[in-house]
């Protein structure tokens, strides 16, 4: 019960802390950029439809760049910011369960990234709908458009939320294991997720991106398969995606909790 209380306290403080624009302006900029681009294209382009704008921007920018970067910035800060700022001493000299602290913070960060990126994805779709041949979602009916039928908005939203879950918790755990989670996270984002996921063959299954694509492929409209690099692999079933990404998230939480229990953070004076 005490652990749950601590977990909740940390989740709430981490979430509120992340929301503060002073701390997270960078994350907001990254998240909103594709929406601005979508709006600019939607308002100015002549030969393009809303579906195309939403799919291209969410696939090439949002899922492959913005989601990993935003979750990296938010996830790695769960522990490493405390270490960098040398405030972790205050936490580790209190009678709290360290795993509860880690899980609470990680879930707080997850809440923030899921909310922000989810909102960013919806905003992107909304901005895209201003394209002259706005197919889905129709700006007049948004947000009451029949999303489930359009094969664009819901798949994007689902993939973004799943990506937030997997990446945020992975990067949070990374922050427990290493003093330089940002560097390793960037290497992972660009070298593994950016490179491996675009190679043909079964290597793709080693990346989170592959499962996000699988999710979209299972729920998305025909237009998705025309995107470059999208149809390079046999996709997982939605149940398989949920199972694997859920396992990955749980594993990240478990490993982070296990490591932080006895880890000492040596701060220089």
């Amino acid at each position: 019960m005490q652990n749950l209380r601590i977990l909740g306290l940390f989740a709430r403080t981490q979430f509120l802390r992340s929301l503060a624009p002073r701390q997270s302006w960078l994350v907001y900029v990254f998240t909103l950029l594709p929406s601005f681009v979508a709006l600019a294209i939607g308002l100015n382009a002549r030969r393009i439809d809303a579906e195309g704008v939403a799919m291209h921007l969410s696939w090439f920018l949002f899922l492959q760049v913005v989601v990993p970067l935003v979750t990296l910035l938010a996830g790695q800060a769960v522990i490493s910011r405390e270490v960098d700022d040398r405030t972790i001493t205050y936490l580790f000299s209190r009678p709290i369960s360290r795993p509860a602290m880690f899980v609470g913070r990680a879930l707080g960060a997850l809440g923030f990234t899921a909310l922000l990126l989810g909102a960013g994805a919806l905003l992107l779709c909304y901005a895209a709908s201003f394209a002259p041949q706005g197919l889905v979602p129709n700006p007049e009916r948004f947000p009451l458009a029949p999303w489930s039928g359009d094969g664009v908005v819901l798949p994007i939203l689902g993939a973004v939320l799943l990506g937030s879950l997997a990446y945020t918790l992975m990067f949070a755990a990374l922050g427990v294991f290493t003093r330089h989670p940002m560097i390793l996270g960037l290497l992972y984002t660009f070298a593994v997720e950016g490179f491996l996921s675009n190679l043909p063959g079964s290597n793709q299954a080693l990346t989170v991106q592959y499962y996000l694509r699988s999710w979209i492929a299972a729920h998305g409209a025909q237009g998705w398969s025309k995107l470059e690099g999208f149809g390079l692999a046999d996709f997982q079933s939605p149940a398989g995606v949920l199972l694997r990404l859920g396992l990955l998230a749980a594993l990240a939480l478990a490993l982070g909790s296990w490591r932080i229990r006895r880890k000492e953070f040596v701060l220089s004076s």
Partner: protein
Amino acid sequence: MSGALLSAQGLSRWYGPVVGVNDLTLEVDGGIVGLLGPNGAGKSTFLKLVAGEIRPSRGSVRVLGFEPFANREYFRVLGFCPQQDALYEELDAREFVSFLLRLSGFDAREARSRAERALERTGLADAMLRRTAGFSKGMRQRTKLAAAIAHEPRFLIVDEPLTGLDPLVRTEMIALFQELGREGVHILISSHVLHEIESVTQDILLLHRGRLLAQGPVPEIRKLLSRYPHKVEIHARDARRLARALLELEGTSTVHVAPEGGRLSIETFDLARFHAELPAIAARERAGIHTLESTDAGLDAVFDYLVG
């Protein structure tokens, strides 16, 4: 194991090739204890070990019967005020202390009222609703101390609390430590400011190059330093006559009379005998002693002799 507040057996901690503390074996009974040593002596490492922030590389340490590292039961009775000035800059002082109190198990209301009391006690009543980002060094120090004492710990560790503070704040801090000591809180306090430590406590641990150089009340440590003669300064009406008589006293090594007369500096290896015989000598020689002072019985001298 005795009922000591703190005991260490062969306690060592190193960071790669750098030795923090090396083979410390000691026992501390309680009360207020000053932890002294020059820069790089291992004070902060020792405090981190005692505070459970880091683990020993070798040996063991127990505080109030607990092994400190990551021990939640121990953290219930511990108050730790670290050296670094870091605070949660986005919070105000009351929020900061309340948050840490909530981690100690208090509910929101209790945490808030305790935080306010602790901040009042450290003299931050007027600034408790200001964001800590704009705090001065002294205010940060007070905030940290408030956070460390707000849950009424049995044992308080304070790392360099007086460094960088103005004289007024120093005096207030010292008064607070004395008050806490009177309330029965055991305090381990590290500092470079020797005379101020001396005004808080006579019990010290002296570290140098990671090793324990001395431990105990300052006057007793001084007595153990028999290699160095004790220095006594006397102001007397007839200093020359008294000097002559004192030179014949066993144990006296040198007697120096100031050129202007009236002031005598004496060095003796047998301070007890000197004090026992002095009244009789002074009466016999009609020296007319005004003042008598031991000039190297203090912490400064002990520190100099041991470290210098």
